[in-house]
């Protein structure tokens, strides 16, 4: 070959395509090859060379593998856009799949599988059938993967033609590469199917364990990951599996090591002998530590996994804390993870060493890391009672350095230490008070105020200290205001003298009359009433003994932990989220483009509810098949939500108060979507609503049947906004004649439907007694208007100017009336349409407003109307033209509903 490939990138004068066409049809082989290379080069830089399709395909019939591969590369890229022409290539493919050269056979099958054109798929079946039984292992392993490709295009075809059975036969193949690919293909097919397809029996188990020793490192990972789904029958089998897997811990490939660790951890659950378990723990430690000698990227993954492992089995690495000490040149993401593990491994035995390290980190340059180190010291103090004093003295030393953010962070953790060990370390309060005026972060300020209020009787000048904060009360963030309020009440109850009395008056006044924060207002009113009706009761409530806290801030819930441990060495264990939370791909066999809703729903539900009850692990069966984790609702209804006032009153950390507990909403009746006549007595009404920046599906069930209905589940079809349920539907069994209403949290962008945007939301609901009900709802786009949609005047103007004119659209809403500018502005603001400016144009008012939907798509709005006269003109500019129609729908409904809605939403937020 002559010259450099990069020369193909240089453009030749004008008329490149005709020139290439000519060269492709040249009689000289070399010239043709060069031409194809040029075409590929153009393709990779994004030029459209699809018009050369026929000419390139003509070069396909060649014995030259290099040229053949290039043509195939081209085909894969353009077949989808030229399905009719792609048929031209079929004959050559079929011929190639019978070529004496195994490389050509494999290449043909591999490439055909990548061409996602229905018509070609039909022709693929016969060659694939042959290649699955080919003599050459290279062809067989390629064919195995091809079955997975075909399943992705047309699942039915794969099942009808018996490819699944052929694939299962390949597990017994004598070539380990073929076994590994067959396992990978079966695992993928299983993931996208709800029927059991790939079940490991004790027979396949031994086959896989044998292949494990011989196949490539990648194959080993496929096999190990499949094995991790296998549930051993008893302890003996578990020990046997572990014994066969343990040598993998010595592998140089970290993925193999981590997958082996996963299996060992899972099987260990079954092993009863403590000796064996101890021995295994001992064996796992060195390889886990060795992972930290790998590249920093792998270290990060290893550390995230180790974080989970030490929560479950702290003994494994109990003696290895030193390896988690940060190196100065570790990337910040590695340092942060190491710190987390150091806290988890800290014990009375090693705390001195650990504290020395933390102290060192707390004087480094990176602010985030320093903060985390200071917090780590505090968390160790809370965790280890005997070391608390040493931790505090380190914190005090750090405070003395007087680096602002270190001091603030230290005060935050000291507040927690006071909570953990009441009446023990108050002697240090004086030192803390010295730094009072340097505090400027809300959390630090709030912590300090909490300390002053809590120990008001021991601080001589507590009233002066608090008073200094009160001057700026209206400007403080809510967090600080709430603490100030509680601290002042405490002070007053402890020292009911004149000074505090005046302070409490001022604070209560500020917090009730002059604030629009409902939390603050409510809390102030309660205090006020308590103080005015029964001061002794107020004392009992406000100064009550607080429960002792423990350090569980970074401890995972045990069921989640088990879920994550079953997912060791996967993305899930890196994010510390269950797979359902981020895997959105729903792979039902797509029936071309006219995907029927019923199909999606059916696959989603075919998982029978009984499966959920008999305790099948959700990670192994559910979750992968559908994007909505359809779970049985907890049998007894959750206790009725109590107003969470007590927590607030006790001056606890605000963050502890659960905020996202779905409460039973009340409010005006919802639109009926499934009338009881259609639903055999069951009536369903629902509506999408936005609360506190989150979208909920407000849904209500009316049981008009004669039986108890239970086991309610819900699923949403793909839609423009990708709305899907963000949790299980919580409906307790419904007695005849009763109704239930719930707020289902929703997540967006989970199952997006392609195509033109539409507000259609198709919903399927089922219960254990009735057939599946389907109904349609409308997605009000304003539910997506974010709280962050407010734009500054200048940025609005800039954005308006920067968008081209053909991004501007306008529409008349003839039946809408603006009865008062202020009311309209307020009403729209409640739906996150924010007012920016207004001007008068003859007798009409022009309002400029902005709104934003997720993914940062802004809407710049201009409303023109005459007050009191029907007819509003709405003009909008947005970078995303497709959404305009939906936007107008939303605006029209917002402007139509008028004040009825306003009051409703005000009630909700109050």
């Amino acid at each position: 070959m002559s010259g450099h490939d990069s020369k193909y990138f240089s453009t030749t004068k004008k008329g490149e395509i005709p020139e290439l066409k000519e060269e492709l049809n040249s009689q000289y082989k070399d010239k043709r090859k060069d031409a194809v290379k040029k075409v590929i080069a153009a393709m990779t830089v994004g030029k459209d060379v699809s018009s050369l399709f026929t000419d390139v395909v003509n070069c396909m019939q060649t014995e030259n593998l290099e040229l053949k591969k290039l043509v195939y590369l081209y085909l894969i890229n353009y077949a989808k856009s030229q399905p009719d022409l792609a048929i031209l290539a079929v004959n050559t493919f079929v011929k190639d799949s019978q070529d004496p050269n195994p490389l050509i056979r494999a290449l043909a099958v591999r490439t055909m599988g990548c061409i996602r054109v229905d018509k070609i798929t039909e022709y693929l079946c016969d060659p694939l059938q042959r290649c699955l039984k080919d003599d050459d292992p290279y062809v067989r392993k390629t064919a195995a993967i091809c079955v997975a490709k075909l399943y992705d295009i047309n699942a039915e075809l794969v099942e009808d033609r018996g490819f699944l059975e052929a694939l299962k036969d390949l597990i017994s193949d004598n070539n380990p590469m073929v076994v590994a690919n067959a396992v990978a293909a079966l695992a993928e097919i299983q993931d996208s199917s709800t029927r059991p397809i790939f079940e490991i029996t004790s027979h396949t188990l031994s086959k896989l364990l044998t292949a494990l020793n011989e196949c490539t490192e990648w194959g080993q990972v496929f096999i190990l990951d499949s094995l991790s789904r296998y549930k051993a029958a008893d302890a003996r089998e578990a020990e046997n599996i572990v014994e066969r897997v343990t040598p993998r811990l010595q592998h140089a490939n970290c993925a193999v090591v981590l997958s082996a660790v996963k299996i060992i951890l899972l099987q260990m659950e079954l092993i009863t002998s403590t000796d064996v378990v101890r021995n295994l723990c001992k064996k796992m430690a060195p390889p886990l530590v060795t992972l930290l000698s790998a590249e920093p990227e792998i270290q990060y993954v290893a550390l995230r996994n180790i974080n989970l492992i030490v929560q479950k089995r702290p003994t494994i690495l109990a003696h290895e804390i030193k390896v988690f000490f940060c190196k100065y040149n570790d990337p910040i993401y590695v340092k942060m993870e190491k710190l987390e593990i150091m806290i988890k491994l800290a014990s009375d035995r090693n705390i001195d060493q650990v504290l020395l390290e933390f102290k060192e980190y707390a004087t480094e340059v990176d602010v985030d890391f320093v903060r985390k180190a200071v917090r780590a010291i505090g968390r160790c103090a809370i965790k280890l009672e005997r070391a608390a004093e040493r931790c505090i003295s380190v914190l005090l030393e750090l405070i003395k350095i007087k680096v602002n953010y270190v001091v603030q962070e230290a005060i935050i953790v000291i507040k927690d230490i006071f909570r953990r060990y009441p009446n023990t370390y108050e002697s240090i309060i004086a030192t803390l008070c010295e730094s009072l005026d340097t505090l400027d972060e809300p959390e630090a300020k709030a912590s300090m105020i909490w300390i002053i209020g809590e120990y008001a009787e021991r601080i001589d000048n507590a009233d002066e200290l608090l008073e200094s904060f009160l001057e700026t009360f209206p400007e403080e963030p809510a967090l600080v205001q709430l603490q100030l309020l509680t601290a002042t009440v405490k002070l007053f109850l402890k020292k009911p003298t004149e000074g505090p009395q005046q302070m409490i008056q001022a604070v209560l006044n500020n917090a009730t009359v002059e604030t629009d924060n409902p939390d603050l207002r409510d809390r102030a009113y309660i205090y006020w009433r308590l103080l005015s009706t029964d001061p002794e009761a107020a004392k009992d409530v406000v100064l009550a003994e607080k429960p002792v806290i423990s350090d569980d801030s970074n401890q995972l819930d045990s069921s989640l932990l088990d879920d994550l441990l079953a997912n060791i060495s996967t993305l899930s264990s890196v994010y510390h989220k269950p797979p359902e939370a981020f895997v959105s791909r729903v792979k039902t066999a797509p029936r071309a483009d006219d995907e029927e809703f019923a199909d999606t729903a059916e696959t989603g539900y075919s998982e029978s509810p009984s499966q959920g009850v008999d305790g099948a692990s959700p990670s192994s069966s559910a979750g992968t098949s559908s994007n909505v984790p359809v779970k049985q609702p907890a049998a007894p209804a959750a206790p009725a939500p109590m107003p969470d006032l007590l927590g607030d009153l006790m001056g606890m950390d605000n963050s502890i108060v659960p905020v996202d507990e779905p409460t039973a909403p009340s409010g005006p009746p919802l639109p009926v979507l499934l009338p009881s006549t259609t639903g055999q007595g069951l009536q369903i009404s629902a509506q999408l609503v936005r609360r506190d920046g989150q979208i909920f599906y407000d849904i209500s069930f009316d049981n008009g049947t004669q039986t108890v209905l239970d086991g309610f589940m819900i699923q949403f079809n793909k839609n423009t906004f990708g709305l899907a349920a963000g949790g299980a539907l919580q409906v307790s069994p419904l007695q005849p004649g009763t109704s239930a209403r719930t707020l289902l949290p929703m997540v967006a962008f989970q199952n997006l439907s392609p195509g033109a945007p539409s507000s259609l939301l198709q919903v399927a609901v089922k219960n254990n007694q009735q057939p599946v009900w389907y109904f349609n709802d409308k997605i009000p786009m304003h539910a997506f208007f974010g709280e962050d949609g407010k734009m500054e005047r200048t940025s609005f103007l800039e954005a308006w100017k920067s968008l081209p004119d053909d991004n501007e659209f306008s529409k008349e809403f003839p039946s809408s009336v603006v009865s008062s500018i202020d009311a309209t502005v307020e009403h729209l603001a409640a739906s996150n349409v924010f007012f920016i400016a207004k001007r008068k144009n003859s007798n009409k008012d022009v309002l400029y407003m902005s709104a934003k939907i997720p993914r940062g798509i802004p809407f710049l709005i201009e409303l023109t109307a005459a007050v009191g006269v029907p007819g509003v003109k709405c003009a909008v500019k947005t970078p995303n033209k497709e959404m305009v129609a939906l936007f107008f729908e939303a605006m029209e409904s917002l402007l139509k509903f008028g004040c009825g809605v306003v009051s409703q939403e005000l009630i909700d937020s109050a």
Partner: protein
Amino acid sequence: MISQFFVLSQRGDHIVFRDYRGEVPKGSAEIFFRKVKFWNDDEAEEAPPVFNVDGVNYIHVKVAGLFFVVTTMVNVSPSLLLELLQRIARVTKDYLGVLNEDSLRKNFILVYELLDEVIDFGYPQTTSTEVLKSYIFNEPIMVDAGRLPPLGPAAMFMQGTKRMPGTAVTKSVVATEPGGKKREEIFVDIIERISVTFSSSGYILTSEIDGTIQMKSYLTGNPEIRLALNEDLSIGRTGSSSYDYRSSSGGGAVILDDCNFHESVHLDSFDIDRTLHLIPPDGEFAVMNYRITQEFKPPFRVTALIEEAGPSRAEVLLKIRADFSANVTANTIVVQMPVPSYTMRASFELEAGAIVGGSEHTLRAKLTFSQESHGNLTKEAGPVNMNFTIPMYNTSKLQFSVIQD
């Protein structure tokens, strides 16, 4: 499995882009690049190697200043993907001799051919240069290695990977020599990364060796090779705690905390005579990785002193003493010491040259600052980082001899 694989330059240009499953929405490379560049709106903070944006998982490593990235939509093993990315980089380097934007662009067709064999439908197939040779038909086009700055030992650990120094680095495993004949060569190196923390009084606080036996084979016919290590080598500390080192200084035996091996290595007789049997595949690979926390004598003692010499001046005194015997010499030494960010000028005197065992060298530097220091000079300067090569010497005393049958 893997949806896409791509290589981006530091500026975010596509160098290689291959979509294996067509399920990730367009623009993923741009989304990735923006996210990495402005992690947390802060250019200083480095993005973690694994993250999720709008349901697409991005996994990346940085090799030779390039981003190697894969995307996936499912819950796969990220360590597998990270290992794979490193391996793709290594295979490409085996083929192209040098790995950089230029060589990738010149060889894009070869690179695509490689990618088709390495990954099928998102599943890694093989990353062994040896195996790939039978499926790859394009010949690499060599970039002139002379134009490139030599990859000195200083650059060795910069990317976090253990690279082999010396001449072998820039030679393709598959390309034939210009003369037409192939030289029968095999390079075996021991590369050790030593991390030692000294207390201010000079005591060793922590010490650790991460070592690799690195091999790059240009042998034809794939003969079996035996690699004999120290006979008294033992694996696994007998004590259960890292605090009790036993009295290891005794007979000079090498104790590895842990080690692992390349898959081509047969360990049949390893337990008996500490010999590794292997048929080295073509290309560069790590025969064995090991880790030592046993006490050892660091080859250098480095003392750094930084003192204020006026409101906006400071003096640095850096002493290096070579603690090895006088008959070996360390060369290509690079000593790095970060100075405070507000340093305007530094002037220093230097004794240049290689360092002979037993000798001591001093560097004096004067720093001028643009602002007054905050009295925390020692924190903002350092720590000192040193890279060096000492031929025929290694700290762990691990040795090997190659026996070819």
